[in-house]
């Protein structure tokens, strides 16, 4: 089971910002106004990212979080997080355990609301359209924003091939989005995930029989098969050995021009290797998690503005 740092975060005064239920999230003025009172750091971070955004010719979609706060029950775990995640770019979310980065990632494809007491405010815009908007279907959103989890989770009763096309079956689509046939799609997805050569001769064996790293790449292939615009990765290598980790990182590098990638990682070297943009999350004593600083990975690792970022990337805590 994936462990998320839920529950051990401090209780805050619920009156400060009233939690709203997911289905009540409206694009009404009050929400946005309230979000306008962003503290300086976060606002700066957003600006930095937008400067760097530019127009990108690559595939993938632009994902933008605007003042996202999140609660579990009355426990506020995220405080007005704003971040742009751009096409052609790998965005890394770093920070110590319990800082809300996984929670934030899960708000980006509406997995957050799977937890019964979960609440949220703010907006997440996929190509300028709020995914929490009243007309958005949660299944459509998740089709467009795929996810790879910390622990490899191929469907154990399905073969490798069935795993790859499981997403299409789940959403009731027969072939790939571009009319490719099934075998082609299986090969293409597995190739994109960098695991085709290893599994091409045993497509009918159960997915659970692969090694951990292969399973994780199978999961990436499965997510890619439905042709998402964005791929979220929640510490995809933390359960893997160094060799598998390197393969996944290579895969990320190859995919970044086809799909917008957002990756949560505990491993700072990994963030430095795979990402071009980086957001540092921190839940300081008694407060919900928030972005301390965000900017180009290069800047974050070499000349961060905030002392806490510097301490973290230098390995002084966390």
């Amino acid at each position: 089971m994936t462990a998320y740092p839920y529950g051990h975060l401090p209780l805050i005064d619920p009156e400060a910002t009233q939690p709203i239920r997911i289905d009540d999230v409206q694009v009404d003025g009050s929400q946005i106004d309230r979000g306008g009172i962003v503290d300086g750091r976060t606002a700066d971070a957003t600006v930095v990212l937008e400067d760097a955004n530019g127009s990108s010719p690559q595939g993938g979609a632009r994902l933008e979080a605007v003042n996202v706060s999140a609660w579990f029950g009355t426990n506020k775990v995220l405080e007005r997080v704003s971040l742009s995640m751009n096409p052609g770019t790998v965005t890394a979310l770093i920070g110590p355990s319990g800082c809300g980065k996984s929670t934030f990632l899960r708000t980006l494809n509406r997995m957050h609301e799977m937890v019964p007491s979960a609440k949220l405010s703010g907006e997440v815009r996929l190509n300028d359209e709020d995914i929490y908007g009243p007309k958005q279907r949660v299944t459509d959103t998740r089709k467009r924003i795929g996810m790879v989890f910390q622990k490899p989770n191929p469907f154990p009763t399905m073969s490798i091939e069935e795993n790859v096309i499981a997403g299409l079956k789940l959403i009731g689509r027969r072939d790939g989005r571009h009319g490719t046939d099934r075998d082609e799609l299986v090969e293409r997805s597995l190739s994109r995930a960098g695991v085709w050569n290893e599994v091409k001769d045993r497509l009918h064996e159960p997915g659970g029989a692969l090694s951990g790293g292969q399973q994780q790449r199978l999961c990436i292939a499965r997510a890619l098969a439905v042709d998402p615009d964005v791929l979220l990765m929640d510490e995809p290598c933390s359960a893997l050995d160094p060799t598998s980790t390197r393969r996944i990182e290579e895969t990320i590098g190859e995919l970044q021009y086809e799909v917008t990638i957002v990756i949560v990682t505990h491993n700072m070297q990994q963030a430095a290797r795979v990402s071009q943009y980086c957001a540092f999350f921190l839940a300081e004593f008694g407060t919900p998690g928030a972005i301390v600083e965000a900017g180009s990975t290069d800047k974050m690792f070499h000349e961060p503005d905030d002392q806490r970022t510097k301490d973290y990337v230098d390995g002084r805590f966390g």
Partner: protein
Amino acid sequence: MAVSASPVDEPRTIHAGAPKVDRVFHGSVRTVAIIVLVVFGSIGLFLGKESISTFHQYGVRFLTESDWEPSLNRIGISATLLGTVLVAIVALVIAFPLALATALYISEYAPARLKPTLVSLVDMMAAVPSIIYAAWGFFLLMPRAQFVAHWLHQNLGFIPIFRVDTDPNAAPWAQARYTGSMFIAGIVVSMMVLPIACAVMRGVFAQAPIGEREAAYALGGTRWGMIRSVVLPFGRGGIIGGTMLGLGRALGETVAVAIILSTAFDFKFRVLENGGSTISKLIAERFGDATTVQLSALLAAGFVLFVMTLMVNTVAAVFISRSRSGAATEA
């Protein structure tokens, strides 16, 4: 340090050196476990020993003869055995979909607040004494179920098991022909099977791993899609195991069947028709005024039932344990 060199390299004996507390506890639980096994084994041995004379006297005829007429020295269990199986099948056909749907609802759809109540309600169904089910079946269900039986006969009568030896379209249709049937007994038994099957299924559904569930959702799957691709394949062993555990119960159910089913020793598949017999019903009804010879015959019938339920339950246990350990999903 000098190690005494042994000419051959062989594993040495390792002494466990377990603390006294452990050894005492180990010993006592082992004793209890052995007692359970001895009691269980002695039941089988006793039944087997008592039935030897019957098998000796009647031979294969004991299994092929349908009538149970000790005064004419005609004793056999073919009709009774068939009745036992038919009642159990009717019970399962009704209980299986109900148990599956109930288990899925409780584990996947029910609001968290409602879950504990629903679970204990279903568990309570298992605690209701069978005589209560019998009364319910006899007084409340039977007068109504005969119309269902009549309807089935009228519309599906061309299927052999739905036939009844009477004209379904006669002006005053023979209502009595549709009462006291294996069909109605099966409905009542299904109510007793349901909680067992449901509890086992619910147990394995709840164990479907959160990682795979989230994977299905993250791909854009609906809840039903997730259930189909994760929960049901994962719970397959539990579905089969729970159903077979229910079957074990259905085969042995006595009181409700004895009260509802009118006694008849015909070798027939017509479940809607009045009359039939099952082994447990036979033993319960004939035990009181049986002679030594008849007693042996009844115990022989009991022995057959014992072996049958033992086999069913063993197979069920294998399925359930395989699904619990996740082995069934690795195939």
